[in-house]
C-alpha cells in the first residue's frame, strides 16, 4: 500500500522503508503511526501527526461527527496547505506531538509521568518557554468547545484543521523555537514537510470519498462541504482509501474524562501483566470499560472478562477513577463482546 512517502505492508503492520523525515529515529523507522494506530494516523507515511489534531480540540465535549469524517476533514485540511504551520514542528515528529498533547492535557504537574520520548519533549518545551503558549491555546480551544459543542466540532473538522487552530497552535510553537537548536533542525526539515503537504491533496480527497461511501454515513454533509471547499471533483482513489480505513486506521471518537467518572478494568490474575501502575493509574494504551455507557448496566456485566481466549479469564474487576481531563478514545463497542470500551492512550 503506497503512502506517498513510502510503502506500508498491511500484513506486517509496518512500513517497509524508513521514515524519510526521521531517519535518525532507529526504533521507529518502520512503525505505522508510532505503533499507536488507535490514536494516530499517518496519511503520508511521514508523520503520525494528523490524528493528533482531533484530540487538540480537548474540552468536555464529544464530537457529533464520525471519526471517519474527522479523518477526512483533517486529511483534507492538510491538502489545503496547513503544513506551512506544521512544518515548524514537524521535525520533532511523534515525540513533539505526543509531548504537545500531553502538555495540554496535564501541563507541568505530570511532566515526570510522561511516557517515553514525550517526557524529553516537554522538558524541552519548558526550557524554551513554550508550555504557557500551549496552555493558552488549549484553554482557548476548550472554551470554544464549551460554548457550542456541536458547532465547534463541525468547525473543527472543517476549518480548524485547515486554517485556524492548527496553524495557530503550531506556528506559536514554531515562533518560540526560532533561533534555538531545535528550531534550526526544524528549518532544515521544513522543506521536506512542505513537500509532503503539497502532495497530500489526493489523499484528502480519497479519504473524503471513502467516508461518503461508508455505510456509517455519518459526517457526509461535513465531507461534502469539505470537498466543495476544496473545489475538487471526487476522488479516483477512493477504493484505496476505503481499504485504508477498513484496516483499522480510523481515528476513533475521543474526549477527556469528567470529574469522578469511573471505568471498570478486568485485570489479570497475574500481576506481572497488570497495566495498573503502583500509583493507581494505568499504563499508556490500557483498555477499560466505562462504568456507565448506556448499553450494559454495571449490574448486568459479566463477572469475568475472557476475550479473546475463554481459557484465560480476567476475573478481577478494578474500578478506575482517572483525574478529570484524562484523554480517552472511545467508548466504542467491544469487538466480540458486550458493552463498550475505551482506551487510555496516554495512561494517567
Amino acid at each position, binding site marked *: 500500500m503506497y503512502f506517498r512517502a513510502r510503502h506500508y505492508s498491511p*500484513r*506486517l*503492520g*509496518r512500513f517497509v522503508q524508513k521514515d524519510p523525515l526521521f531517519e535518525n529515529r532507529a526504533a521507529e523507522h518502520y512503525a505505522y503511526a508510532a*505503533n*499507536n*494506530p*488507535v490514536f494516530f494516523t499517518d496519511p503520508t507515511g511521514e508523520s503520525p501527526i494528523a490524528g493528533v489534531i482531533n484530540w487538540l480540540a480537548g474540552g468536555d465535549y464529544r464530537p457529533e461527527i464520525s471519526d471517519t469524517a474527522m479523518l477526512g476533514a483533517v486529511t483534507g485540511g492538510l491538502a489545503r496547505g496547513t503544513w506551512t504551520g506544521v512544518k515548524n514542528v514537524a521535525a520533532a515528529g511523534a515525540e513533539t506531538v505526543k509531548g504537545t498533547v500531553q502538555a495540554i492535557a496535564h501541563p507541568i504537574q505530570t511532566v515526570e509521568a510522561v511516557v517515553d520520548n514525550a517526557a524529553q519533549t516537554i522538558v524541552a518545551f519548558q526550557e524554551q518557554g513554550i508550555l504557557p503558549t500551549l496552555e493558552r491555546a488549549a484553554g482557548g480551544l476548550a472554551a470554544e468547545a464549551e460554548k457550542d459543542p456541536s458547532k465547534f466540532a463541525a468547525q473543527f473538522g472543517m476549518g480548524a484543521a485547515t486554517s485556524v487552530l492548527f496553524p495557530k497552535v503550531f506556528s506559536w510553537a514554531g515562533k518560540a523555537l526560532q533561533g534555538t537548536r531545535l528550531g534550526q533542525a526544524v528549518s532544515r526539515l521544513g522543506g521536506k514537510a512542505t513537500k509532503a503537504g503539497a502532495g497530500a491533496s489526493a489523499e484528502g480527497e480519497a479519504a473524503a470519498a471513502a467516508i461518503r461511501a461508508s455505510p456509517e454515513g455519518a459526517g457526509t454533509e461535513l465531507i461534502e462541504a469539505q470537498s466543495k471547499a476544496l473545489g475538487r471533483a471526487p476522488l479516483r482513489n477512493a477504493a484505496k482509501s476505503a481499504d485504508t480505513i477498513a*484496516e*483499522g486506521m480510523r481515528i476513533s471518537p475521543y474526549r477527556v474524562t469528567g470529574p469522578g467518572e469511573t471505568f471498570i*478494568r*478486568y*485485570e*489479570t490474575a*497475574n500481576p*506481572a*501483566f497488570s*497495566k495498573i501502575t503502583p500509583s493507581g493509574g494505568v*499504563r*499508556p*494504551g*490500557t*483498555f*477499560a*470499560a466505562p462504568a456507565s455507557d448506556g448499553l450494559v448496566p454495571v449490574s448486568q456485566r459479566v463477572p469475568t*472478562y475472557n*476475550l*479473546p*481466549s*475463554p*481459557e*484465560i479469564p*480476567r476475573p478481577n474487576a478494578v474500578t478506575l477513577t482517572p483525574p478529570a481531563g484524562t484523554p480517552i478514545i472511545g467508548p466504542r463497542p*467491544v*469487538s*466480540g*463482546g458486550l458493552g463498550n*470500551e475505551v*482506551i487510555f*492512550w496516554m495512561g494517567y
Partner: protein
Amino acid sequence: MITLSQRWLAELIDKPETGMGYQIVSVVLSDGRRFDQVAVVEGRITQIRGLADIPFTEEEIAQIIPTHDKWDFNAERHMEGHMR
C-alpha cells in the same frame, strides 16, 4: 498455547493493548513464515485466527509485531461450533 519468554514479554508489555488485557500481533518466524492475527493474552499466544493449533514454537519466533487487527472473536467461535 505458547508461553512467551521474558524477551518478548518485556517488549509487549510496553505496547498498547488491542482490547482489555490482550494484544493482536503478527508473528514472523526465523524461516520467513508469518502468521497474522495472533492473540497474545497474559504473555501467552492463545490462538491464531483460522487455525486450530499454533504451528510453531517460541524458539522459532523472530519477530512479534503488534497490529491490533482484531476480529469478532465470539462470532467465529460460534461458527466453529456449528461446523463441528
